[in-house]
């Protein structure tokens, strides 16, 4: 941005948000270059301005200004996304939502709440838990990710297998459109057939169509009981077959996770107690105590039928926490082996996971790279983590090649390139692998209609 334009906009934005909520200091701006995107996202630009808005009125005024002066706007929650969605690659204004984090209303009887986008998922869940409720989608980043960011990415996590991703929990959105106009989408009711479903359009739009300023969410009563089964296998096939049978039964698990041999070895090396084996399946059930107990017997039976050589059921909160420990320690455990990771986010129909594991092994053998695969196998969403050392260019090249090969395989198996992390910059160029040109053209038409000047998080998604 040229200096004249910058000083003009500086004056106007300071009038809107106050001096203390505006920064053009390089020290501050430099900290907004990246989000949690890994090394294969190479585009970097220092934003021109950082703004910490306090309400939708301020945001609307800023967007109007940006629209008039053709300045890119990038909304940012915690910057924990892995696709560069919050990276301001064309410069401009970063809107940081850290201070817009109020819970505006919790309506116990109608089981909904109204929040500002900057509240952190775990914080909201802690508040809801005190009233006996929870917001079921729990992304792995829920400790720092904001609700706004999760809605923008249609985030998911391990409970999606039963409860769905964020899009299933949004009733309505107060949104500032790229023109600066403020609209409310959706309804306060749990269902509506009225008009185009703009809420669903905006969820997962990664800040390219508008900026959420208030979010109305459904909430769910906390289950009376949760139990966890961990099953150990001498191969990966039987683990996958267990999951296929589980998913087509009436069990309705609230989480079905898998860890492959490398993930298991890494967490054992990291100091977590786990039995050494080829694969592990973790199944969580929730509901009333009697019901969970009965269903857990079936889960165990199915696991044993598929040659699980050992199973263990966690009943108390402490036991369950201990059993989750291995799964939740994979990232630090892998980092202890190799300093860098490209965390992929592929999903295939659940019947294809056996084949997917075979193909991943093929890539690993061919390139001589370690790939640890784990994830939400219940909905076919796996995270193959490609391990490398970014100080070794040959390893970086191989890692990038592994990503390319992985993507080809996923499409061949009828899957999606991203189950829950989104497109951002990282997968923008490969969108066409998954979608027809005509479909992408419809997406482009929507974007151009809502944001004809392309100011809203430009150069992302399509």
């Amino acid at each position, binding site marked *: 941005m040229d200096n004249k334009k910058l000083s003009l906009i500086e004056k106007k934005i300071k009038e809107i948000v106050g001096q203390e909520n505006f920064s053009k*200091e*390089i020290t501050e701006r430099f900290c907004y270059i*990246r*989000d*949690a995107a890994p090394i294969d996202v190479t585009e970097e630009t220092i934003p021109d301005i950082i703004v910490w808005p306090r309400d939708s009125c301020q945001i609307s005024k800023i967007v109007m200004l940006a629209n008039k002066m053709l300045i890119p706007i990038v909304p940012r929650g915690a910057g924990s996304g892995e696709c560069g969605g919050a990276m301001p690659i064309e410069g401009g204004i970063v809107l940081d939502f850290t201070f817009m984090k109020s819970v505006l209303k919790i309506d116990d009887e109608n089981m909904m709440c109204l929040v500002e986008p900057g509240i*952190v998922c775990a914080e909201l869940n802690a508040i809801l838990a005190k009233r006996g409720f929870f917001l079921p989608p729990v992304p792995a980043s829920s400790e*720092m990710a904001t609700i706004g960011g999760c809605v923008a990415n249609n985030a998911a996590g391990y409970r999606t297998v039963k409860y769905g991703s964020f899009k299933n929990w949004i009733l309505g959105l107060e949104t500032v459109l790229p023109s600066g106009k403020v609209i409310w989408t959706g309804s306060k009711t749990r269902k509506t057939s009225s008009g185009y479903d703009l809420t669903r359009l905006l969820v997962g739009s990664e800040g390219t169509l508008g900026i959420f300023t208030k979010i109305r969410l459904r909430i769910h009563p906390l289950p009376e009981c949760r139990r966890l089964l961990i099953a150990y296998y001498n191969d990966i096939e039987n683990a996958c077959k267990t999951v296929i049978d589980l998913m087509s039964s009436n069990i309705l698990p609230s989480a079905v996770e898998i860890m492959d041999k490398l993930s298991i070895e890494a967490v054992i090396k990291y100091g977590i107690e786990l039995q050494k084996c080829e694969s592990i399946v973790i199944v969580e059930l929730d509901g009333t105590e009697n019901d969970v107990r009965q269903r857990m017997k079936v889960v165990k039976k199915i696991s044993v039928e598929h040659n699980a050589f050992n199973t263990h059921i966690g009943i108390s909160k402490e036991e369950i926490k201990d059993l989750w420990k291995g799964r939740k320690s994979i990232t630090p455990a892998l980092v202890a082996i190799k300093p860098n990771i490209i965390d992929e986010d592929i999903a295939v129909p659940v019947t294809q996971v056996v084949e997917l594991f075979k193909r991943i092994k093929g890539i690993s053998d061919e390139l001589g790279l370690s790939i640890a695969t784990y994830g939400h196998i219940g909905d076919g969403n796996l995270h193959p983590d490609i391990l490398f050392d970014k*100080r070794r260019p040959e390893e970086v090249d191989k890692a990038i090649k592994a990503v390319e090969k992985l993507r080809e395989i996923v499409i061949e198996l009828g899957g999606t390139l991203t189950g829950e992390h989104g497109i951002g910059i990282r997968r923008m160029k490969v969108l066409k692998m998954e979608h027809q040109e005509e479909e992408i053209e419809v997406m482009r038409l929507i974007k151009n209609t809502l944001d004809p000047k392309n100011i809203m998080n430009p150069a992302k998604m399509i």
Partner: protein
Amino acid sequence: MKLLDKKLQNELIKCTHCGTCRTFCPVFLYMGKESYNTRGRIFLLEGLLENKLKISEEVMDRIYSCSMCKACDVACPSSVKFTKIMKSFRSYLADENIRPLEDHYKMANAIKSTGNVFGKRIEITDISPLVNKLPNEAPNLLYLGCVVSTFYPNLAKTMIKILSEANYQFTMMKDGEYCCSSFLDLVGLEREVRKAHEINLEKIKSRGVKNVTTICPFCYGAFYELSKETKAFSTQHSTELLLELVNEGKIKFKRNFNATVTYFDPCHLGRYHKLYDIPRNLIKAVPGVKLVEMEKNKESSMCCGGTIRVPYFDIRSGMSELIVKNAYYAGAKYIITACPSCYHNLNTIAFKYDLAVCNIEELIGYSMGNIKEISKI
């Protein structure tokens, strides 16, 4: 000297920029701006290493406003040891005569001339008549530290009385204490750290001391490092010693302290040395006390901002207020701490929430009948 040695560059490389630190960095929790978060500081260090940024007043501000509390170290999913990185970078800045900040130099000079970080020459023998009665040599030494000896002589008096009543054989540095070095270490003045260590080692050896007890967790850390390096003595925090004396029946409680209290974990006792349960067990030993936990406790406890009070007074106050609020929501009437610095910082805020702050030694002294009431500022 390099900006960061190879080992620490490798440590930096482990950061995936995931932002988990946003939930734990107490400076960020108050400031809310990315450059005051660990990830932001890592971006700045990466920028300096890659020559994309230059050292400026603003960059220095973010470097020295880190409270070095280790909250990010403990929470980081990639196990990045950021406090080590920051300490090393501050040492580089000091070695190259680029920094520390002006206020830090003043404090370092105060130590040089008076042995005390606040520039006040403290006569240890004036603190309590009991000091003169102590032997000049003993196997155990009680070290007060700059904060206690300068601002809280009553706390020192209470501790001396507790130990004397428990028939604990100890001495003190009657000729005056010299700064433990922790402040110098935090701002990267390594040469001065070594000098302080030499002086203190001589003082310890000349008294035949085999065990040093400190009231202040910062001093505990400094003596712990010195004892690890020299193997000349062992180091104990006052809470460890007091619990031993309670368990041996040498400390006898005479009255109840009927109150709901919470314990605030000082960073340099908790995250730095994993002393979480000992202070809690000590508090629980006092009759009448009901101990409740704050939502953020032990490893995830916040930081009072004591290490950055100079010159970041406002940030310190904001950080302390977050802790006091936590204590208030936990339903406590008293915040007990085992660090005179935390005590100092929390005490300036607690009254706003109708809470009182109390040093753990005061609680013990009160229940033993040594002091009439828990002191308030």
